[in-house]
């Protein structure tokens, strides 16, 4: 709390204005707007929140409250590749924790954070509904089933930008 967010880069607001325009007459469309904003910028930059607040006349604190409530939203810049390790029941039983440990160690990041070069971000998610393939890791939008730690790390390191 009370973080100074000086790491917020200047962002191009043009795509954001289009999103706001699309939803400005829809009642209660706060979450869709934030979702589209995150799709565009990869996270929810503070200047974007301020712009949404101003144009949709939604108090900033309410936006911040919503953005921090839902696990989907990110207020910090994220890596170019998103690694999501499922820790749902089936995956947990089949060694999801081990996968997380190995990824953290090898890619120099912590769950919920990004690697120093912003190449990877790691998240732990609950059940992606592919329990038959446990343990499951989703790399960007690709599902890796029955993931094995060593093989997975090799795959991850091979990802090109």
């Amino acid at each position, binding site marked *: 709390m009370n973080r100074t967010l000086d790491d917020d880069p200047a962002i191009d607001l043009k795509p954001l204005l289009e999103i706001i325009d699309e939803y400005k007459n829809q*009642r*209660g*469309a*706060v*979450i*869709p707007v*934030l*979702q589209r904003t995150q799709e565009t910028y990869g996270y929810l930059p503070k200047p974007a929140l301020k712009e949404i607040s101003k144009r949709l006349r*939604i108090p900033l604190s*309410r936006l911040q*409250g*919503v953005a921090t*409530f*839902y*696990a*989907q*939203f990110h207020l910090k810049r994220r890596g170019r590749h998103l690694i999501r390790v499922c*820790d*749902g*029941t*089936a995956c*947990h*039983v089949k060694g999801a924790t*081990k996968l997380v*440990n*190995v990824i953290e*160690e090898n890619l120099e990041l912590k769950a919920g954070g990004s690697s120093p070069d912003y190449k990877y971000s790691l998240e732990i*998610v*609950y*059940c*992606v*509904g*592919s*329990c*038959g*393939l446990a343990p*499951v890791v989703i790399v960007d*939008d690709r*599902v890796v*089933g029955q993931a094995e730690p060593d093989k997975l790390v090799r795959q991850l390191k091979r990802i090109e930008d």
Partner: protein
Amino acid sequence: MGKVANLESLQQVYFEAIPLLANRRAQGGPAEKPLNGKCDVLICGGTGCVASSSRDVREALLVEIERRGLKEDIRVITTGCHGFCAKGPLVVVYPQEVLYCQVKASDAPRIVSETLIGKQILEDLVYQHPQSKERFPVYHEIPFYRHQLRLSLRNCGLINPEDIREYIARQGYFALGKALTQMSPREVIEVVKDSGLRGRGGAGFVTGIKWEITQRSPIRPKYLVCNADEGDPGAFMDRSILEGDPHSVLEGMIIAGYAIGAEAGYIYCRAEYPLAIQRIKIALAQAYEYGFLGENILGSGFSFDIYLREGAGAFVCGEETALLASIEGRRGEPRPRPPFPSVSGLWSKPTNVNNVKTYGLVPQIILNGAEWFRGFGTPNSPGTATFALTGKINNIGLIEVPMGITLREIIYDLGGGIPKGKAFKAVQTGGPLGGCLPAEALDTPVDFDSLVQAGATMGSGGMIVVDEDTCMVEFAKYFLTFASAESCGKCVPCRIGGRRLLEVLNRISNGEGKPEDLDEIEYISRNMKEASLCALGQLTPGPVVASLRFFRPEYEAHIYERKCPAKVCKGLITYRVIEENCTGCMVCKRNCPAGAISGEKRQVHYIDPNICERCGICIEVCKFDAIMIE
């Protein structure tokens, strides 16, 4: 396609659509006349099978069919989930009704040449029973399917969910036509009430009564919400229906909208279900195109709209008032009920909230009558229950069974029992807010009331089986960790109580448990249940309470003997090399991430318990069974 203007033109569309399904056969349905020389190849396009590369299989089949010039005779159709996810990707060949499991893209040429052309069955792709080794080539004869009764899932895996005509060919939207043209809203509600349908979201409230309360409110507008925020880890019933048969849910919603006099409906679906969302979007577009949504539906004068909202990752939004707050663009925090949403819901207007499966069953009830539905299941819980079967069980997947079936039948007849000959220990129903039942309860019939009586809950349909290797303290701790992390933080008992309860459990599993901790667990649980604002807080202690009730000695062993009987809790176990078995091959030493293993080549190794992180890698890699847990 123009709009379907009335019931007669719906009939017309139906007759035109029938040939699409002529080759296929639903479970227990009449054998329809196959079209001469034509085949349908169904590829599962559910999330599970897509994850195991069913799209590659489809591409390979298409290439092979094209190469052999069979495009006219063989249709390749992507369906929704068949439920048998552990064996995916699944391919079903009609009219023979042969199911192939774990199909790879490289199998495509064989399937085309041997089965589609040669009418021969590829034995190696056929399902084989893990114990009896018997092979079952025919889809509906596989034990996993044979014991099922598929009402909610009747179209899942049978039709192409992206083609509304295939749904219509299954008499889709006929119930809507019947309701709009031959029934008054009151009559619709009476039928749903008579059917005894209870909400499939978990609590089991009688659907017809809920509709009636909303219908009676003089306040307008009214809204309708479909709760598709299926957040239980290990549960995917709603997702499968939305992926495999989205129109049944839309049709149920439109009928409900007509019955209660709502002007619009919202589907609130988890964002973690991209495929389901895509299929809903396609289905919505088609329903508007055909005129089942929008203005003056089927010429009845009734108008209705459905909007899709994606959740943003909050388990508590499965709670109806939290879900409504989320649709309104606020934090997904529940509020005290009463007033219930049927009185004051979305934007403070009367709102009917039902689960995906509840809406999905409505069209069949309207079409076949209340009597028909009451013919299944038990008097107090008519119909079927849909479960996502997971954990230590052979047949992981999605099942639908008549209410009243016993847990034993589900686990052993459908589920194929416990893998690797291990012993069954417990089954958790009701997801992370439910409870576990021990072996003694296996003959409990599965229905809303019996499960509660036994100490668990129906929940929305997760069923997790665990074997003897599972520590019930750690199992309960896992669910508690999940549920307390999902607390919205609004009310005190859930926000802080969940954390304190978890701290007690952590203490016990770390070997620091105190004799008074069991009383403490009961005290916190009892009061969380009484004092929390919503079901999440009230039911968060559920798994702990149930496991303490049925597996108390296991808790006591952790506290008094400082032992984890299942040898799971890291604070209470030590890894040790069995000297007689160790060959000094050094595999464990090389693989140990903590560097806790010492020993020279061909010398007995030693694990330093102070460095060992109890990750279990050494046991997995040892080929000589030379490492044990104490």
